[in-house]
């Protein structure tokens, strides 16, 4: 599918150049309010990510760096690192270790420049009662638990984020292909292409997609200046965002922010194609399961219990 888009539209580059010329023309005649106006014009007519050639992308990233450095008062580095060869990312979460502390959520919010007000979380930690036989359907969860201390006696915790399905229902329903699966298995969103219809949110079985209902707000001092075009760059009002396995980190061989933040080592991440990776060890030696297997979305996000009965509480 990704190749379809590229193959079909060889004529687009000329149109882009034409538009670029038009942009310059508008700016020169003073129709638009200087550079900002020209930038808005370019942004409005910007093509889908997969239709941008290397020159387009370089210009866009440079503009983005300039704009964001000015806005957040720090040097921003914008990348569009492509997927690595022979790499498909997978994730495993040890439910017997998770203590429900939500440090992963806060690390994710900071790393991914998620809006603080309105508040957006790409990770949700669900709390369940032990002994509740209905927990795997997720209906009997509580996301808004507030005890003095975690883990609380008689409770256990299931963090949920994008499951990076191999058969993602969200991708199928998007009317404009603003969301797609990359060769390394990560499902991404082009925040400049999404029209905000939210069909993907209706289709996602894991509540893993978040809409920017209002204008996102990120405090300058907490802004993460290392950004990826398909990942943690600031999103816009009226578009959908989601976990990208920290694409800005994982594509450079680093762990995701949630893996690094977990104080109990419950989160495991790696390359499913590498037979020596930790993730492969877990899949081959632990009893793993995935959420909502019955709808066959084929997630690359696995859950397991390393200690059988769970931690003492």
């Amino acid at each position, binding site marked *: 599918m990704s190749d379809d888009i590229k193959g079909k539209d060889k004529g687009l580059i000329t149109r882009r150049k034409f538009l670029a010329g038009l942009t310059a023309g508008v700016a020169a005649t003073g129709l638009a309010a200087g550079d900002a106006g020209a930038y808005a014009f370019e942004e409005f007519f910007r093509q889908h990510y997969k239709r941008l050639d290397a020159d387009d992308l370089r210009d866009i990233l440079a503009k983005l760096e300039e704009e964001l450095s000015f806005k957040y008062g720090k040097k921003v580095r914008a990348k569009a690192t492509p997927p690595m060869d022979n790499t498909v990312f997978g994730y495993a979460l040890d439910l017997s270790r998770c203590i429900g502390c939500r440090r992963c959520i806060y690390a994710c919010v900071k790393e991914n420049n998620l809006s603080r007000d309105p508040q957006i979380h790409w990770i949700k930690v669900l709390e369940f009662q032990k002994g509740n036989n209905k927990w795997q359907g997720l209906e009997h969860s509580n*996301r808004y638990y507030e005890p003095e201390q975690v883990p609380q006696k008689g409770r256990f915790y299931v963090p*949920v984020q994008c499951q990076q399905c191999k058969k993602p229902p969200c991708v199928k329903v*998007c009317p404009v292909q603003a969301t797609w699966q990359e060769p390394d298995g990560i499902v991404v969103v082009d925040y400049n*292409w999404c029209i905000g219809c939210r069909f993907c949110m*209706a289709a996602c079985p*894991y509540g893993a997609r978040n809409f920017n209902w209002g204008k996102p707000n990120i405090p300058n001092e907490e802004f993460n200046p290392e950004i990826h075009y398909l990942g943690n760059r600031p999103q816009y009002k*009226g578009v959908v965002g989601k976990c990208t396995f920290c694409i800005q980190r994982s594509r450079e061989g680093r762990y995701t922010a949630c893996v690094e933040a977990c104080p109990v080592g419950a989160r495991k991440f790696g390359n499913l194609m590498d037979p020596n990776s930790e993730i492969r060890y877990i899949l081959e030696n632990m009893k793993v399961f995935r959420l909502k297997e019955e709808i066959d979305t084929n997630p690359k996000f696995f859950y397991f219990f390393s200690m059988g009965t769970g931690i003492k509480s």
Partner: protein
Amino acid sequence: MAIDAINGIVRTVVTGSKEYKAWIGFLSLLALVGIAFVFRQIDQGLIATNMRDDVSWGWYIANFTFLVGVAAAAVVLVIPYYIYDFKPIGEIVLIGEIMAVAAVSMCLMFIVLDMGSAERFWHLIPMIGIFNFPQSILTWDVVVLNMYLILNLSLVIYALSKTYAGKSYKTKLIMPFIFFSVPAAISIHTVTAFLYLGAPSRPFWNTAVLAPRFIASAFCSGPAFMLIIFQIIRKTTKLKIADEALHKVAEIVTWCMAVNLFLLGSEVFKEMYSATAHIEPFNYLWNGLRGHSQLVPWIWTALIVNSIAFLILIVPSIRKNFFMLNIACAFIFVGVYIEKGMGLIFPGFIPGTLGDIYDYMPNAMELWISLGVWAIGLLIFTVGAKICIAIKTGEIGHADPAAHH
């Protein structure tokens, strides 16, 4: 000739009884209030609505869904008149098509209002943008709704321009389009139902009976509305509409409501007898779930008014009493509005995929904006119907008012 026609049409639209002018004024005012609120929504974003991540579609999509149904009304007239040659409906079939045009226009307005980044609509245009066809059912809906709009608009304009000129239609020319409008009407409901029922993430929608039920209830709500409109039209204009025509439409509504209630029964049985974890949204709607029960009074109201309407309609002698018929029609309109709107869309999201219960109800802004859309839709219908009647009764143009077309 063309100038004459335009003059005539403009004169028809701007002149009329006191009631007509008051009605137009009232609708325009509502439309303006709605538009004022739209500016607020554009400024703040959809956060100004009560929708949130847990219930990510709300009142706008509920209205959209209901109005796709209303747009079917035309076909309920087209089938008996053109296909079974039931003559008395001839006078009103165009009014039905104008209603379809108004209803689909409202659908498109509701969709645009619900888009977070509507200014990017060009991303949907094939070639320039990316039209994810046939993968995304939403693109199918874009195709069939626009096709249905253009089809009905063309048929109305063709018929009226011929009538205006005092000529008869070239039946051979339009019959293929008329026949095509029947599956086209079915397709807009089917595809709209498929938007929802194709999502295994939402057990409440994930039922094959959704599409047939859409069609059954659609063939109730649109015609019910029209039955009332036709009586107003024949009281206030020179257009003659025979009782027979109204009785025929009422009969169709009766049997469609029977099918609708039967399919509801099938759904109730399936959910309650199998009683899997997937019953939760159903329980939320009909009984309340874990202390949340705000939709319960609404859905029971819908069931009760639909059932009463069905009982009125099922007895021919009662159905033929216009007072009783009007009560039944009003009940059906309200009943299906609740059932196909909040009764279908909201519980699809409650509880959410992770088990959250967010008690969504639209806020005042959503209600005002929706009222504005309804006002614009009714303006399109009123003005369209007035022009149509003026041409058909020979007030403007060269129609022979005595002849059926």
